[in-house]
C-alpha cells in the first residue's frame, strides 16, 4: 500500500525537475561549493521553470500546487548534493509567511518576484545570544510616525547574503510579555540602516550563504509589518511546524540518497578477492540496518505529510520526526563513510559532503533537544 497518492501531474513535474537539475544545476554545484555562494541566475532559472514557490496561487504567478509539490522539490533538490539553491527555505519556509499573513498589497508586491526567482528571501529570527530561545530575542521595532525603526542584530541567517527580502522578527520594547511583543516585518535589501554582516564559514552548506545581519535605526514603512501588531510569536510558532516538517523531509531525502549511492558503491566495488563489498556479511547487515531505519523514517514521515497536506498538523509527531529523522540521516552519513573506507578521506567521496551538510539539520529549525521538550510537553509529561 502507498500512503501518499502522487498523481500523474506530480510524477511529470518530478521528472521535469529532475532533468532540469541534472542539466542546468548539477554541472555548477561543485563550483558554488568552492565559491561559498550560489549565483542569483540559478535562482532565476529555477523560478522561470516554475520550480520555486509551487504553492503560491496562480493569481500571483505560482503553480498553485498542493503540498506534494513542495515535497517533490525538496526530495529532488537533495539529489543535487548541494545546499546553495535553498529553494526549500525560500519556497516552503519564508514565502509561506507572506502567503498566510501578508496583506493583499504585500502579496502583489512580492510574491510574483518570489516565484520568478528575482526575489530571494530569508527569515531573521535567531540572534547571537538567543538560539532556540526565541522569547529572549532583543532586536527592537519602535513606531516613529508612520514608520517602524528597527535595531538589533541577527545571526545564522541562511540566504543571508543573497537575500533581497528579509522577514525580520523584532520586539516592541514597550510590551513586556515576550509572547505578545514580537512582530514580523518585511525588510528589503538596500534599506538604509540594514547591513549584511560577515558571510559565516561553517562545517558544511558551503554553497549556501549564511550571514549576520545588523539593523541600526533602520526605518521601514509601517505597512511592511505582517499580520497584526504583536502577533509575531504566534505566527512563528505556527509556521515553525511546516519548517520542521520540511527539515524532516530534507533529512529523510538525504538519508535515502546517501544510502542509495553507498549501496551502489558496495554492490559495484570489489575487494582484492573480486567479491563485491555488499556480499561481506557485515557490510550487508550494515546496509540492511540502515535501509530498515530509513524505511521506518519514510513511512512515519509519509503519514505526517499526508496529515499535514490534509490540514491535520501533528505537533508531537512532527517534533518526533524532525529529531529522529535528522539524527538518522546523521548516523547514516557516518556509517556510509565507514563502508567507503579510505575512499571516505576526501571530498571526492559524495558522502563526505553529505556528512558535513547533514550535521546542521539536528541543530536548525529548533535543536533536536527542543523537539523532545516540545513532544514531552504536548504528551503531557
Amino acid at each position, binding site marked *: 500500500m502507498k500512503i501518499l497518492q502522487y498523481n500523474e501531474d506530480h510524477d511529470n513535474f518530478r521528472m521535469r525537475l529532475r532533468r532540469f537539475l541534472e542539466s542546468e544545476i548539477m554541472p555548477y554545484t561543485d563550483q558554488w561549493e568552492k565559491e561559498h555562494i550560489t549565483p542569483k541566475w540559478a535562482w532565476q532559472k529555477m523560478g522561470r521553470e516554475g520550480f520555486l514557490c509551487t504553492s503560491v496561487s496562480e493569481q500571483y504567478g505560482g503553480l498553485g500546487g498542493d503540498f506534494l509539490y513542495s515535497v517533490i522539490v525538496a526530495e529532488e533538490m537533495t539529489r543535487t548534493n548541494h545546499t546553495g539553491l535553498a529553494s526549500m527555505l525560500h519556497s516552503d519556509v519564508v514565502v509561506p509567511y507572506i502567503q498566510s499573513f501578508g496583506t493583499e498589497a504585500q502579496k502583489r508586491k512580492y510574491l510574483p518576484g518570489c516565484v520568478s526567482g528575482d526575489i530571494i528571501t530569508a527569515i531573521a529570527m535567531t540572534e547571537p545570544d538567543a538560539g*532556540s530561545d526565541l522569547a529572549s530575542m532583543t532586536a527592537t521595532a519602535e513606531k516613529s510616525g508612520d514608520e517602524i525603526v528597527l535595531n538589533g542584530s541577527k545571526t545564522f541567517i541562511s540566504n543571508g547574503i543573497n537575500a533581497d527580502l528579509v522577514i525580520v522578527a523584532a520586539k516592541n520594547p514597550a510590551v513586556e510579555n515576550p509572547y505578545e511583543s514580537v512582530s514580523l516585518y518585511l525588510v528589503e535589501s538596500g534599506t538604509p540602516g540594514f547591513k549584511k554582516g560577515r558571510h559565516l564559514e*561553517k562545517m558544511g552548506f558551503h554553497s549556501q550563504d549564511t550571514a549576520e545581519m545588523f539593523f541600526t535605526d533602520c526605518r521601514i514603512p509601517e505597512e511592511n509589518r505582517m499580520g497584526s501588531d504583536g502577533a509575531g510569536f504566534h505566527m512563528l510558532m505556527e509556521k515553525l511546524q511546516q519548517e520542521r516538517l520540511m527539515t524532516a523531509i530534507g533529512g529523510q531525502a538525504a538519508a535515502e540518497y546517501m544510502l542509495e549511492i553507498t549501496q551502489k558503491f558496495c554492490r559495484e566495488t570489489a575487494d582484492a578477492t573480486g567479491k563485491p563489498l555488499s556480499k561481506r556479511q557485515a557490510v550487508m547487515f550494515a546496509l540492511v540496518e540502515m535501509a530498515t531505519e530509513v524505511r521506518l523514517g519514510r513511512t512515519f514521515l509519509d503519514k505526517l505529510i499526508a496529515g499535514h497536506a490534509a490540514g491535520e498538523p501533528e505537533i508531537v509527531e512532527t517534533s518526533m520526526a524532525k529529531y529522529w529523522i535528522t539524527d538518522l540521516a546523521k548516523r547514516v552519513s557516518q556509517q556510509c*563513510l565507514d563502508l567507503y573506507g579510505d575512499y571516505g578521506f576526501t571530498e571526492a567521496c559524495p558522502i563526505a559532503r553529505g556528512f558535513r551538510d547533514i550535521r546542521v539539520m539536528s*541543530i536548525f529549525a529548533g535543536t533536536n533537544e527542543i523537539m523532545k521538550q516540545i513532544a514531552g510537553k504536548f504528551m503531557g509529561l
Partner: protein
Amino acid sequence: MEFELSKPQKEIQKAARDFAKGEFDKEMVIELSKGRKYPENVLKKAGELGFIGIHYPASCEGAGMGLLENALVAEQFCRQDSAMGMALLFSGFAAECIFRFGSNELAEKFVLPVVEGGSLSACAFFETGMFGNLASVSTTIREDNGHILINGEKNFVVNGMNASFFVVLGRKEGENGASGDSGDVFLAVVEGDRKGIRLTDAGQTLGNNMVSFGHVRFDNVRVDAGNLLQKSGSVPGGGPAFINEARIQLSAMALGTAQGAFDRALDYIRQREQFGRKLARFQVTRHKIAEMAARIEQTRWLVYRTAWKFDRKKCDAAEAAIAKLTASKCAMAVTDEAVQLLGGYGYMTEYEVEHFYRDAKTIDIMMGSALALKDAIADVVIGKLK
C-alpha cells in the same frame, strides 16, 4: 600495580600541553586548513623541542622513550587542536618502520631529518580494493642487481604530496614471481625524489586539512637494495607490526580530539544561557556531559595501557585494534555531542569543534574503519577453529 603516570610522564604531558597552548594559534589553524598548507613552522619548533619522535631511539636523535610517551604528546596536541595535532604527529608517520625493522644506517639517514622537524614521511601501504586487508597487497618489490624495483599504486597516502620518503608495503617477487603467501610481504623505503614516482593530489579532504593525501604511482622505481627492511614480517596476531603501532597512535590522537571537544563544550555550557538559565543547569545537558566524561575516562586508561603493553612488546593485534576502535568511537561520539551542545556555533568554523568532528571521522576511517578492526579483533579472540 601503579595505575598512574610517572612523574616524568606527567612532565612530558605538561610540556606538550604548554607547547600546544602557546603555539597552536586558532586563526593560524583555520587559515592553514583552508589553504591545505602544512604547518611547517610549528613542526620545526616541535622538532627542536623534542616532541617529534619522542619514541624514536637515541641513535636517531629521538628521545628513546616509549609509545606511551608519544601517546601522551599526541593526546595533548590533539586536545589543543585536532588538525594541528594530527599534522605534527603524522610528520614521521611510518618512520617507525625504519628504526624498528631497518638497519642503523637506514635509520640515521631517513629518521634523523624527521626528528629535526624538517622532513615528512609517508606510509604507503594501502591500495584500491584493499579495504583494510593488507595481505591482499599487489605492489611488487623485485631485486635487480643490487637495487630493488618497485611497481604499483598506493592510494590516499598521508603526506603523499610532500613526503621526503615513502615506506612502501609490497610483495617481494622471486625469480618466479611472488609465492602469494604472507611471508612475501615486505617494506621498502623509497626516496621521494626518485624517478618513476607519479603523484596525484587526492584533493580536498574531509578532515585533517593541513595534511596532503596523494595517490602515488611507482613505475619501475629503483632504490638501493639496502632500502628493503628485512625484519618487516608479521607479529603475533597477524599484520605488519607497524599497523599495531599506528593504531595505538591514532587512538591517542582520537583521545585528545575527544578531550579537546569536551573541554570546549564544557566551557560553553557553563557560560551560555538559554531560557533564562545556564545550559549547565538542564539535566539533559548535564547527562550529555556525564556521558562524554565517562566515555573519555574509559578510553584514556585503555589507550595508556595498550601503549604500555606495546612498549613491553606484549601487545597483540586485537589489543591495538580494540584501542583504535574504542578511541575513535569515543572521539566520534564526543565531538558529535560537542557540536550539538554548541548548537549553531558548533557548526561554525570559528568555534573549532566542527573540525574536531571532521578530524574524528578521519581518524575513525584511517588504518581500518570499524569493520576491519572487528575482523582483526575476532581473528585473535576466536583464534583457529577445528
